[in-house]
């Protein structure tokens, strides 16, 4: 049992943000409606940006302010707006179906979280940032988003899971090493944006061909 030292307010806020990120990852996993899913994703981006600003303030790493601004613009404003527009055009604001039922998904999620915490332990011990204990939460959100991708039947939640996974990786990068070099981050942001555009185009193609966005229509190319 650890004895808790008194931490400064900024540090406490960081812990709170990390905990909220994990909560949002679980909330996305158990969410049924696509609209709420997109809003949760936007909230995740927002809290991510806040935590980056917080850590920038504590550690005086000023390039993190730029990262936070980038995250805010792309993940809180542009991507959710794109997604909202997409689902309105595609007319799919209804419920999301899952392959396994939600309580089982959550239980598996807990197992994944424990696994992620264990995985992060050796790295956290080596890290020198103030965020090092949040690395476990970052890896956990990556795993949970991955789980969300594979247990969903419709295309849009899969894509949102993919984007959430990228959020988790970004948080992992920030908590292990105060983020990647700026040029790399810009490249990653560009990739995400372009990827999102392509996904958007894709959805229309899928919908036009199959008249639905159910992934199960796309399981014909199997091994015979």
């Amino acid at each position, binding site marked *: 049992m650890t004895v808790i030292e008194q931490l400064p307010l900024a540090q406490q806020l960081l812990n709170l943000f990390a905990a909220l990120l994990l909560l949002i990852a679980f909330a996305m996993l158990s969410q049924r409606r696509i609209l709420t899913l997109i809003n949760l994703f936007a909230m995740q981006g927002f809290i991510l940006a806040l935590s980056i600003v917080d850590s920038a303030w504590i550690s005086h790493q000023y390039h993190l302010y730029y990262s936070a601004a980038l995250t805010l613009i792309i993940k809180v404003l542009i991507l959710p707006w794109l997604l909202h527009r997409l689902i309105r055009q595609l007319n799919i604001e209804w419920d999301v179906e899952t392959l396994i039922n939600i309580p089982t998904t959550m239980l598996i999620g807990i197992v994944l979280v424990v696994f992620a915490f264990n995985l992060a332990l050796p790295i956290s011990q080596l890290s020198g940032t103030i965020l090092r204990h949040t690395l476990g939460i970052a890896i956990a959100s990556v795993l949970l988003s991955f789980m969300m991708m594979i247990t969903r039947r419709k295309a849009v939640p899969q894509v949102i899971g993919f984007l959430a996974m990228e959020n988790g990786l970004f948080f992992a990068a920030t908590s292990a090493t105060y983020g990647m070099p700026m040029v790399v981050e810009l490249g990653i942001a560009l*990739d995400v944006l372009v990827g999102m555009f392509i996904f958007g185009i894709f959805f229309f193609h899928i919908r036009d061909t199959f008249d639905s966005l159910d992934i199960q229509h796309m399981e014909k190319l199997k091994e015979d």
Partner: protein
Amino acid sequence: MEIFWLLGMPLLGGALLALTGHRRFAPELNGAISLATLIASLVLTSKVIQDGPITAFNDQFFIDPFNVFLVTLTAFVGFTTAMFSRPYMHNEAERGKLSTARLRLYHSMYQMFTFTMLLALTTNNMGILWVAMEAATLTTVLLVSLYRTPESLEAAWKYFILCGVGIAQALFGTILLYFAAEKILGEGGNALLWTHLNEVKGTLEPTVLSMSFIFMLVGYGTKAGLVPLHNWLPDAHAEGPTPISAVLSGLLLNVALYAVVRAKVLVDGALQTHFAGQLMMGFGLLSVVMAAFFLSRQKDIKRMFAYSSIEHMGLITFAFGMGGPVATFAALLHMTMHSLTKSAIFFAVGHAAQKSGTQVMENIRGLIKTNPTIGWGLTLGTLAILGMPPFGVFASEFLILTTAMHEHAWATPFLLIALGVAFASIFGKVQPMVFGETAGKRLPHPPAMVPVFVHLSLVLMLGLYIPPYLVTWYHQAAALLG
């Protein structure tokens, strides 16, 4: 300076073709830009052979014998494929399968794809390498689904999602690498530069590096088609237009493996054990065996050759995993041979499928009668890829097998059985396609068989005699890889 031309040409070409890609001269323009890229790469190659490894633009780019040979290979195959794509696309447009918007997309993305691959090969920054790999996927996704059939959409979706997830793993691996590097090299962009990492690789933290390598192997290995992460490959290579299948099989897999090998060099230096090599050997062997068995059950010709790509990539991975001068030399040689041969096969297959209007092997017959050039191209290409002497593939496979017999004798029976199964299946299926009975007709446009024969003759020539400068080149590259 050459790097600027090398990267700038495809980028410019992509922008240009986005506007003019549907015009009559678009395929020729495509070819011309690819030719310019090839010339730039040849100039760069000669410079590197003369002066040794060069870095440029503040250490952001790094060319050494290893990646310059891949750069030339990429530019060359890119050029020949562009030449092949001319009549092929004319045929396709004639049959009404593609609209103007899609032609524009196709041509501009073709150049952009070349750009991303060249960027991935020439960059010194492991982070930018990741960005370029992801961009390569992004540029080709829409091309795989170009025909908008349900199968091609499914293939493109699988490609996107599976490669996306895979590459996210690679991103995590890169993050871990940066994490380890930052301790030694300090923060900032320089910590991800491969040359700097190579200098200090002995002092990088072993646990973190091994974890990083695992993630990068899984991530980039997904893009290279290693079993069990290969699910997207047969679909994507089979459903897209043939020029895309050719470049995906011939070039992208190489670049993905290049990323893995760069990481392996760092890990080997940090760990001083054979951990990375053993992992690669394991995945490689698994890929070879599984691919050979999957191969035997395929009915679609492009899928079959896609599995053949997986098999050969597995072989190359296995060889890189073994390490040592001979195996690495063999792996590099095999990379070249495989690219040339596989793209040649896809060219021939593409035209054959166009002729017969189908990709199902049972329905393609008697190519030698209706179009002798296609028939011969396919036969020779198949013989080449199956490792018949005197084609070059035989030489590299022979080297790999003998090294395996020396050092890892337990793996040899698996390799031999797998290669044998593949031989029997492919040959057994191609033979009736070429020599069977048929009543087909000729194609409206004469097929572009020149690229096929150029490739095959290169492979033949290299099988018989490797020019000394090429040998030195390979040896230099192999030496760099330890």
